[in-house]
């Protein structure tokens, strides 16, 4: 009576589902020995999917090229992808799955700092090396002053960019006052702001106002109206391109003519699309590479051929991480995570799309130049190349 037919069916389904969980759990083997299993923990859906997916395209291309060139000692590299839904909790989930179920020996990603930090504990516990391709926050590889043995990155770090832009503002632009407009939902943005302020004020400038917004905001006019009133020489906006495009557009609309400065998050053709070429004039940003650099050219060509559209900076960084990984795998010669870890740490003078990199074993950050680009009528114009300060 109480236990109707339908209900019986429902619980049967439930039971099967439970059992299958248990059995599915038994399936995690370490993979066959004729391929290298590499994990990609990526923001495929959710708020940061744009950045994650672009990086994944670059990564896939690097792996594909390596496989076409004969793989690693005749073995093919197999990329196992997992979606972290742009949430740090899910990044842990995805990393755990990659390690325990898919048996990967090394992981590339995620794109965003917070997600990499979430993942790093699981990777460290399981002694699986990680290469972060776009997480520029210093805390990614270092904790309490000590380097995290298994966590690496293939991009430069925020202090470098922040310092570069602050020096650029005070020395080249002779700016005395600055406003910072920060994405307070992003560690990236916040830490860049901090470094910029320190450097800029040390050089005699003054940050007269700091405003904040949140990722995915649409309307910035209210805060910009306030910023306009501050009348500063430069406005520093360390943020990602989606918001940057809208901010620049709306700033110009309400009559802000001041110079705007940005960071690598600006490096995407979308900024010009959204803001409009003329609005973007009188803006500068730091980034990882310039399209006419050696190495970059061939990457851009093959990327465009592969996907039918030009790469953005995330794609380039994803590609870099892939190159770095392939190089390390070759030198490691086995899929032993410890060997891979050691090989990554010993990376030296490796030509990737954005630069020639050497891994700093003390910080697990690559030693890389930063580039400053000026937007002129919708085109990137190379401004300067600045080596890391130390």
């Amino acid at each position, binding site marked *: 009576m109480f236990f109707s037919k339908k209900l019986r069916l429902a619980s049967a389904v439930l039971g099967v589902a439970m059992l299958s969980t248990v059995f599915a759990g038994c399936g995690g083997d370490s993979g066959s020995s004729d391929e290298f299993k590499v994990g990609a923990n990526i923001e495929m859906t959710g708020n940061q999917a744009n950045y994650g997916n672009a990086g994944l395209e670059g990564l896939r291309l690097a792996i594909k090229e390596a496989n076409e060139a004969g793989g690693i000692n005749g073995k093919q590299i197999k990329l196992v992808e997992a979606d972290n839904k742009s949430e740090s909790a899910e990044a*842990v989930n995805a990393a755990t799955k990659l390690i325990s179920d898919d048996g990967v020996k090394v992981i590339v990603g995620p794109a965003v700092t917070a997600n990499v930090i979430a993942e790093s504990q699981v990777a460290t516990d399981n002694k699986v090396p990680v290469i972060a391709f776009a997480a520029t926050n210093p805390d990614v590889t270092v904790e309490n002053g000590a380097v995290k043995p298994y966590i690496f990155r293939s991009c430069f770090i925020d202090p470098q960019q922040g310092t570069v832009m602050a020096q650029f503002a005070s020395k080249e632009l002779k700016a005395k006052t600055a406003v910072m407009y920060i994405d307070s939902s992003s560690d990236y943005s916040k830490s860049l702001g901090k470094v910029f302020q320190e450097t800029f004020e040390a050089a005699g400038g003054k940050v007269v106002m700091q405003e904040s917004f949140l990722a995915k905001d649409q309307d910035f006019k209210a805060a910009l109206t306030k910023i306009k009133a501050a009348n500063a020489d430069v406005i520093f906006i360390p943020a990602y391109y989606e918001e940057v495009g809208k901010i620049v557009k709306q700033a110009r609309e309400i009559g802000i003519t001041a110079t705007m400065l940005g960071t690598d998050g600006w490096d995407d053709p979308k900024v010009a699309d959204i803001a409009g070429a003329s609005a973007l004039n009188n803006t500068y940003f730091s980034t990882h590479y310039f399209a006419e650099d050696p190495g970059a050219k061939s990457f851009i060509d093959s990327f465009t051929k592969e996907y039918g559209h030009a790469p953005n900076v995330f794609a380039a960084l994803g590609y870099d991480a892939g190159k770095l990984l392939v190089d390390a795998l070759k030198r490691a010669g086995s899929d032993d995570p410890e060997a891979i870890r050691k090989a990554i740490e010993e990376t030296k003078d490796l030509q990737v799309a954005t630069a020639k990199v050497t891994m700093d074993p003390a910080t697990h950050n690559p030693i890389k130049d930063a580039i400053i680009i000026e937007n002129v009528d919708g085109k990137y114009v190379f401004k300067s190349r600045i080596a890391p300060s130390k």
Partner: protein
Amino acid sequence: MNLLRKNDLIMLGLSLVIFAILQVLITTKVLTSFWELNLIIIGINVIMAVSLNLINGYTGQFSLGHAGFMAVGAYTGVVMTTFFHLPFIVAIIAGAVLAGLLGFLIGLPTLRLRGDYLAIATLGLGEIIRIVIMNLDYVGGAAGFKGITHHTNFAWVFLIMLFTLFVIKNFVNSSHGRACIAIRENEIAAEAMGINTTKYKVMAFTIGAAFAGVAGCLFGHNFYIISPGSFTFLASFNYLIMVVMGGLGSITGSIAGAFVVTFISAVLAPWPEFRMIIYALALILLMFYRPQGLFGYMEVTSMGIFRRIFKRGHES
């Protein structure tokens, strides 16, 4: 009445057997750490769903802000362990107390509202909690709280889940619980039966919030980093879906709902493009063909199969 106690003991024994089996499977690595993690998430979701069910399903008060209380518990807990270096259990209790207190303070004025108005007000309150946390630099603001020590494991989650189920089941099977159910069924008649409806609505809301706080604390200590982004109204929707999918007013249902939703999410993980589409369609179809959820108001203990196994009938 011994029957009640006997039933309890059987359920408890059964649960401990399941626990032992799973724990052995985990320790021997038969269940990989990915599946351990999923079991942990299921456990946390069960606590969330059952505590929300107390508010939505049993007391009939439409709350859409449950993730907010989870956030309070999570942040309180990690502050306790990370900044004050207090034991995990103290953090859990603190998370429960603070979330419960907040639930009480919020519930007192807002539970005068009914139906959709209450729903939108609680949704708003959940968002306000999240935004306030987002603006607190003390806990890392929008970028999240980092450097949390990993305390949560399967044993903690399972035992606390069991405790939650025990408390909430006992609550709803008492005069207090019946008062809440009466409010759901007919508030005016409940009041006419001598039930102080405001008191019981607030009580259910407070207890529900406190357990959400517990779940939050477990959640926070599982992921090394927590950010306000994990506690948006979409997360509240997700818990509501678990409750409705399992059946409003059924603890068994909430367990099943939490299980099914977490499971679907894990199984569909390799197809991120389709995952949400399938999930959405499943939800709509469920509402078409089984709007009362998988279990309706039913509990496992009252089901034929269970009674048959333990040779137990209704006393009548």
